[in-house]
């Protein structure tokens, strides 16, 4: 089985030949391994493609997820609403959460047009470029859009948005509705451009800042709406904040693969949400991958494989994306651990 088919088999809740290994990679990671500043990655689609292919080649046994990706960080969706973007030299661009001078302006907010607004058309052009110039065996596979809670927080301000949920639920609901619609439209427009897409990918960490009650009221309906629009495609959700308190609700949202935080006990996840969706995680990107030794990485992976692996539906990965300075030896240790301990049938440890 090749790495991608192994990944897709686990995503279908099956047991592949061995536990697949995947890394959630983005502009930072590709730039680091290609030896360029992150800003250079954004400024030229050729550089973006070359850096991505270079990193993929370094780790042929790993499914680099989502693979080819015109990744411009969190700013794409807020830019389409008019947020001001800041571009550091060696980090991803960012926006300040201060788009609305008057919170009541949110009541008149409309979703942007992805074909004309902010950075979205620019991203679409980068997708087209990558599709045209990538080698035959490397396809652009996923449409990617940030989820409504992240986009809302980055436009309104993180703390302000959380307070609105209780103090001004009318404003909060309107913002979530508009952002939900934006996520859907943005994914759909990308899917028109990508020749043979296999899935949609929705990262949205901020949802876990909500209490179970607030998540049930605001989060569950928004996520159900998003994921119900993309039947027939693989639906991957990333949230690397601690979601222990809303795991049962997340299980009802309709995604098939869950990339989750190291703060969540993998045993708890396996017994609960992991019975319904494929678990992708949750090695600690900082304490283990960045600061640990290859031996520590291997040992940590062994434990996770023995808890997450049995019965299938498990992808060995990090609880979030790797730091750009992650040592190459530690990435290689992930693959070694899967080969050593992840051959099916995997028995619980």
């Amino acid at each position, binding site marked *: 089985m090749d790495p991608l088919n192994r990944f897709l088999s686990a995503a279908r809740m099956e047991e592949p030949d061995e536990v697949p290994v995947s890394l959630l990679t983005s502009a930072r990671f590709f730039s680091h391994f290609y030896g360029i500043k992150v800003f250079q990655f954004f400024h030229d689609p050729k550089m973006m493609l070359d850096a991505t292919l270079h990193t993929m080649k370094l780790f042929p046994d790993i499914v680099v997820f989502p693979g080819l990706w015109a990744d411009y960080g969190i700013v794409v969706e807020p830019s389409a609403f008019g947020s001001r973007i800041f571009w550091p030299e060696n*980090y991803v661009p960012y926006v300040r959460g201060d788009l609305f001078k008057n919170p009541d302006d949110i009541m008149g907010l409309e979703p942007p047009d992805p074909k004309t607004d902010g950075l979205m058309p620019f991203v679409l052009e980068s997708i087209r470029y990558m599709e045209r110039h990538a080698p035959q065996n490397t396809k652009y596979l996923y449409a990617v859009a940030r989820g409504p809670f992240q986009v809302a927080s980055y436009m309104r301000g993180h703390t302000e948005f959380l307070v609105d949920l209780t103090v001004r639920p009318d404003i909060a609901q309107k913002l979530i509705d508009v952002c939900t619609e934006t996520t859907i439209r943005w994914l759909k427009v990308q899917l028109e451009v990508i020749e043979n897409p296999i899935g949609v990918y929705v990262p949205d960490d901020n949802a876990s800042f909500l209490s*179970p009650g*607030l998540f049930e009221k605001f989060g569950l309906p928004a996520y159900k709406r998003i994921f119900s629009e993309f039947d027939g495609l693989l639906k991957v959700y990333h949230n690397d904040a601690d979601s222990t308190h809303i795991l049962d609700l997340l299980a009802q949202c309709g995604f098939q693969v869950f990339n989750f935080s190291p703060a969540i006990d993998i045993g708890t996840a396996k017994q609960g949400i992991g019975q319904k969706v494929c678990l992708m995680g949750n090695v600690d990107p900082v304490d283990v991958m960045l600061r640990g030794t290859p031996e520590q990485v291997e040992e940590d992976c062994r434990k996770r494989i023995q808890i997450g692996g049995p019965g299938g539906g498990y992808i060995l990965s990090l609880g979030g994306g790797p730091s750009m300075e992650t040592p190459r030896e530690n990435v290689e240790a992930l693959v070694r651990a899967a080969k050593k301990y992840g051959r099916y049938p995997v028995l619980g440890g």
Partner: protein
Amino acid sequence: MDHESLKSIALKLEALDIQGTVEEVKRALNEKIAPFEIVKNGLSPGMDKIGEKYERNEYFLSELSLAAHIMKGAMELLGPRMKASRERSLGRFLVGTVQGDLHDIGKNLVSMMLTSAGFEVYDLGVDVPDEKFLQKAAEIKADFVGMSSLLTTTMPGMKSVIELLKNNGIREEVKIFVGGAVVTQSFADEIGADYYAKDAMECVRKARNSITKGK
């Protein structure tokens, strides 16, 4: 002071009753209770209960942020009247998220918990240049400097602030606290910070203890 209004403030705050808390604070002021007492024996016990509920997974970040919002409203009433009683504060605590980092939830909670515990808090906000920490620490004669970082790329900023304070001769005048998702005790030791706190509650506990124990 065991006063009915102070108990009510604590209870209303713990219940996250926005209007109720503000009304009780106003009532206490009308009863001529000193603003310092209102914070120390009304808001602070309320915040302690909220912190306990967070640690027991009864409250979450959404509730802590709401508590911060309520505290802010209460402090807007009390703040102007408290300036005169600065000598009664537990110390001047400068906080900020380091340069290049925009995460504010944890830092805001730290500000709020410290305020309610009786510290005089100066919040520099997010994406704070090193020089700003130095300049403000010197200006207010800070007793504590707290830095937050949630990114491995911005963590080194904590070290450079400490060096800057050192080079300008005020490092030994302040107790340095660091925290944030990627920060650990070993990182705090490595860069020469005095304290690491895993969350806002621990920050308050350690800051309180540091006053009695020294560094």
